[in-house]
């Protein structure tokens, strides 16, 4: 079982949303990390075959998924970033409807739907209308429908949005149990979602893969660049404005413990700290703006823009 992304590119006019992304995915969990506008959703839509690439292709076991058509969709499970529901549906109606579209045998659909609803913590809610669900409940319902057909390729776009910490842990356990003989591609901008369950992390920025590898391996990219220091609260605020500060813990004494990603010791007395994936994320996306405006690289006239990382 192998999913190959071969120089996938997606352009919207002059904007390049995904730029020549290549990867070879085998069974396991792949965490796709990136800020808003990095191209994650566009990439995932192309992997699912619902958005045509401008160039490049997705292949499953050597065969282009565009040619496979329904054969590929039969082994695919997908949870979009934003998904809706029919207002008149109950949770069980929704699951059985999706089971019908996924070709799950009708006799098994109900049994499987109820089992999955219990698995995601919605036992007892099956007769309730989806429109009365909280955001977290709807997200869990979305996760449940994604695995209805026991997919071989599971694509989850921001699956933990709206989930509380306890639900997030439950979700991680669920994904870890599903990934044994599946390809799971999971996008998020919350590092802790993938830090412990991903076999490989892929970091995207402006449509390109900028870093990829096992979590332990890529974290070494910020080895020696993570510092912890004890400063005054005012100094902590000042540091936050000019440096990449990962965490500030204010103390009652008027001081603060800060964690900073920087090339050199940021303040006197700063000591090196063991880097984490979150530190790496902050380092890679240090100059990203906080707004949610979509961004893509603009193609230079007459030639491909250079840079980027290929698998």
């Amino acid at each position, binding site marked *: *079982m*192998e999913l190959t992304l071969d120089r996938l590119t*997606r352009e*919207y*006019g002059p*904007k390049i*949303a995904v730029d020549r992304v290549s990867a070879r995915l085998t069974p396991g969990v792949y965490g796709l990390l990136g800020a*808003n*506008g*990095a*191209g*994650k*959703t*566009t990439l995932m*839509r192309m992997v*699912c*075959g*619902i*958005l*045509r690439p401008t160039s490049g292709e997705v292949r499953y*076991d*050597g065969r282009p998924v565009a040619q496979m058509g*329904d*054969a590929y*969709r*039969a082994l*695919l499970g*997908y949870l*979009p*970033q*934003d*998904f*809706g*529901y*029919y*207002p008149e549906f109950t949770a069980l*109606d929704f699951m059985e*409807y*999706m089971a*019908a*579209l*996924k*070709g*799950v*045998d*009708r006799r*098994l659909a109900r049994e*499987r739907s109820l*089992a*999955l609803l219990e*698995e995601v913590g919605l036992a007892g809610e099956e007769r309730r209308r989806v429109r009365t669900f909280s955001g977290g409940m709807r997200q869990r319902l979305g996760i449940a*429908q994604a*695995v209805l*057909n*026991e997919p071989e390729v599971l*694509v989850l776009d921001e699956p933990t949005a709206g989930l509380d910490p306890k639900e997030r842990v439950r979700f991680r356990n669920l994904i870890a149990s599903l990934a044994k003989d599946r390809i799971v591609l999971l996008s998020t901008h919350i590092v802790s979602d993938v830090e412990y369950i991903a076999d490989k992390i892929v970091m995207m920025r402006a*449509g390109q893969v900028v870093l990829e590898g096992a979590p332990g391996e890529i974290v070494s990219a910020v080895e020696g660049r993570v510092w912890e220091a004890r400063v005054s609260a005012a100094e902590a605020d000042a540091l936050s404005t000019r440096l990449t500060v990962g965490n500030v813990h204010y103390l009652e004494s008027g001081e603060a413990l800060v964690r900073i990603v920087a090339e050199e010791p940021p303040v006197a007395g700063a000591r090196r700290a063991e880097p984490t994936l979150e530190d790496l994320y902050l380092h890679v996306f240090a100059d990203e703006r906080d707004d949610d405006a*979509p*961004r*893509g690289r603009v193609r230079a006239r007459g030639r491909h823009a250079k840079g980027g990382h290929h698998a």
Partner: protein
Amino acid sequence: MRALGRRGRGTERELEERLREHYRAFAPEGGPPEELLAAVDRAAASRRPQVGWPTLLASQARLVLPRCVPVAALGIALVALLELAGASRAETLVAASAAGALQALAALSGVVSGRAHGMTELEAACLLNARSVACARLLLSGCVCAVTLALCAAASPPTLPAWVMAARLGAPYLIACAGGLAAARRAASADSLVAALVWAGVTCAASALVYSVTPAVYARASDGLWAGAAVAALLWCAREVALWLRAASLSFEPAAPLADAS
């Protein structure tokens, strides 16, 4: 969790492994042996879920029929009641025209609901994808309308030819459907249902109001014009149906806004 559809996977896995070995051992230019590819295809097809039109139609019936059938019944009952009450020819035809547009309004609410409620992305990635779903809904609502047409023609007075009833009922229905689909396709997803229903509602109101403005429109002499309008509306509707199905399979293609590049 209980496994489904695992039979035959051992054989298929062996074939897949042979195929993989071939790719890794040789340059891709030659390609794998045709018989090996065909064997993998057969193995994959044997374990692929078998779904057909009955399953698809059954899955969509719940979303379409509860909207269409009551309105259809209302239209048929109205025509039958007017016949029993001895209504004039014009009154029966006005009622039929309005019922046709109303039928379209009910049909559009089912056909467009996937887009309006943000379900197309989920449906697009399923075995029975968004295009299949759209096709099934159009087929179901079209069948309901065809039955409505036939029953209205049967319920109408003997002095009213069936083709006249069909034209009076069909023209507003097809105009409402065509315009509704066009409006829904052009509108943003969240507004698509409202756009479609507004168009259909306006068509329904116009069908009823035109009688008070120009009664001659419902006179016997205009039967041919109505038939012509129905044919033209049918062609327009066919075009909009084709565009709607095309849009269903290309939901995320340009002119997707740049905000989709996320």
